[in-house]
């Protein structure tokens, strides 16, 4: 008995030693690399509706499984969202216990909770939104999230989810309040995804002009208008007729940046007498052909919901385009001018050197 006890103790010690020296490990060692479930989907990114109080709108969602060898299992859920920053990036409220937003569509939406799609197939599902009779006019929005299944294999299981943003406008008298926060030249190398306002552009001509609006109303706003760019001689060097050609929205409470190209690939092709195909390059900024100097930009934008007053915002902003090479040339010219003035004054001084001033008879050369 004593020997058995010693044996078990020894065995446990050895087992403990083995476990303690074992490295941390993967969840399950994979035996094959064959895709076990699809994580590729196609969806509609945005839906817009106008729904009167008391009305129900039924619509369809089309979802595709892009994987031709595996099935796609999706769970569907309505979630709320707001803005992340000054851009159009939605901040999704993914937590199960996230509180309803004031603009939520969750209580008014009927949506299937799951969907299975065969390899390479596309399915259409019905869903509906019912706006209660007593719901006030304004904008309401939420998002439909499609979550694909994840794997139990490997250390890092990967999931792919897609999101459809759903916007509903309930007609009626709404509170619209956009205020201009900033307007001017905007330096960005990635079509406005990142960048900043610039007053003196020295690293090259600014590719974009932007304006920032704060939305203090109870509706999403989609302003439209024009920006005109003139050089210091008053000549129009750029005209942006669609200052919001991507239909960008300022969400409720958001301070939204609207950045637009001074020149696009497409506009340059048009200038050269060419034709762009399928709007290619319409939104791709290129460096505008500006000469160094002072520029004046004029903004004129309008906004207003159907049946509500149209509001207009105008503004003027200035910016300098002073590239480094130009500053260098300017400095050299200024130095030369300064030197010239100094030389002329020196000459003048030499000229009057030795002269005296006779009251009433001016300067005369000393004898």
């Amino acid at each position, binding site marked *: 008995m004593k020997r058995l006890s010693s044996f078990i103790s020894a065995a446990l010690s050895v087992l403990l030693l083995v476990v303690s020296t074992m490295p941390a490990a993967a969840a399950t060692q994979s035996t094959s690399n064959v895709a076990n479930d699809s*994580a590729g989907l196609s969806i509609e990114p945005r839906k817009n509706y106008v729904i009167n109080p008391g009305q129900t*709108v039924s619509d369809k969602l089309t979802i595709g499984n*892009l994987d031709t060898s595996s099935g796609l299992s999706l769970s569907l859920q309505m979630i709320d969202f707001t803005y992340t920053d000054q851009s159009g990036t939605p901040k999704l409220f993914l937590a199960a216990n996230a509180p309803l937003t004031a603009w939520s569509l969750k209580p008014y939406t009927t949506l299937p909770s799951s969907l299975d799609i065969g390899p390479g197939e596309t399915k259409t599902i019905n869903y509906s939104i019912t706006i209660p009779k007593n719901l006030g006019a304004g904008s309401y929005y939420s998002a439909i999230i499609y979550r694909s299944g994840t794997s139990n294999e490997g250390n890092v299981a990967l999931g792919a*989810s897609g999101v459809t943003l759903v916007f509903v406008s309930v007609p009626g008298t709404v509170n619209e309040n956009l205020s201009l926060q900033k307007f001017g030249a905007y330096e960005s190398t990635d079509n406005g995804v990142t960048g900043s306002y610039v007053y003196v552009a020295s690293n090259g001509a600014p590719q974009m002009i932007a304006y920032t609006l704060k939305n203090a109303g109870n509706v999403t706003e989609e302003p439209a208008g024009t920006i005109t760019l003139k050089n210091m001689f008053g000549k129009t060097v750029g005209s942006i007729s669609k200052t919001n050609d991507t239909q960008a929205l300022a969400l409720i409470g958001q301070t939204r940046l609207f950045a637009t190209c001074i020149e696009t690939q497409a506009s340059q092709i048009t200038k050269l007498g060419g034709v762009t195909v399928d709007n290619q390059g319409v939104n791709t900024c290129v460096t505008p052909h500006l000469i160094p100097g002072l520029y004046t930009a004029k903004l004129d934008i309008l906004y207003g919901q159907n049946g509500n007053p149209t509001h207009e915002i105008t503004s*003027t902003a200035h910016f300098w385009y002073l590239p480094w090479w130009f500053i260098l040339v300017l400095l050299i010219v200024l130095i030369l001018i300064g030197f010239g003035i*100094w030389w002329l004054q020196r000459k003048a001084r030499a000229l009057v050197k030795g002269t005296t001033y006779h009251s009433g008879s001016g300067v005369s050369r000393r004898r």
Partner: protein
Amino acid sequence: MQRLKRPRVSLLPHHTVVVELLFLLLVGAFFVLGSKASAVIRFTDRMLYINSAIPGATTMYQVSFTYNNTGVYTTTVGSIDMQFCEDPIPDDPCVAPPGLDVSHATLSNQTGETGFSILSETGNEIVLTRSPTAANETPSVYTFDNIVNPTDTTHSFAIRLSDYPTTDASGQLIDLGSVISEVTNSIEIDTQVPPILIFCVAGQVNKGCTQEYGGNYTDLGDLYPDVTAATTSQMAAATNATNGFVITANGPTIEAGTHVIPALATPTVSAEGNNQFGINLVANDDPDIGPLGSNMDDSDVAPNAVVMPNYDTANEYMYNDGDVVAQASGVNLGTIFTVSYIVNNAPDLHPGVYTTTITYICSGRF
């Protein structure tokens, strides 16, 4: 006569002149900078109501405004010009909204300043006329029936308004202003191709997401304190939506039960022997286990995808649940992003099976 000595005038040295000129230039430059906002008042209280906002529908339009007599050269109004254009600004060329037709519009009602009838109509212009009469600053509403809505839901459209003392909208205008609106689908129109967003995640993918290899997981193998465990996965996204797409990474850091390897909160280099979990979306050569990951493979046409700055530095990794890791600012025909994962562990890391589930969420931008 008193003989005066010439007053000594100290000449400015040339460098002082240069500094002074530069100073004046800079002061002048900054003096004119900045912007100011002000509202332009033209016709006041402008408003447009469209009875049905469905694209292509034949419906009723109600145009409201108040005549503005402050500072005008005459208050006599004999005609009103209403131009329907994509863009509201009077000086710009007027492009008619596709699908719109006002050539059969009828003036069914008018209040405020009245007595108008339709003088002429084209596809996108209506001219109202009356005997020239002084206009009061009273709210006026003009209702038109039989207007066919534009069919393009991707842009708003405007009515450019102007009034004239003449009866045919000729000569110098008195007031001007625009009203805007847009048409929106309240139900699906089957003939219209909707925007599509495609997205996939796997070990390896192609731009169209038609081929996925390696499954929807990735394996870091065993963890040792003196070796960085690393692996990669790929994702592809594409959209024909004009606002582009955005991808976020969601999920906890790698963990085994209650034992957690903390995620790097800021971009940090890999350091063996420390508990670290992080990702990035660029090509790396550190950890020194051969090339890790690769740079974004953007759309060939109009490339506009970007990796967000925190995940765009080679050999620096981080991970925050919910972070935006990549996005595209407009239509993008397919971009592949390669995600690199690294895990380092301290020698005293509790043994166990460390796992996580990272869900990449791709959504459109608004």
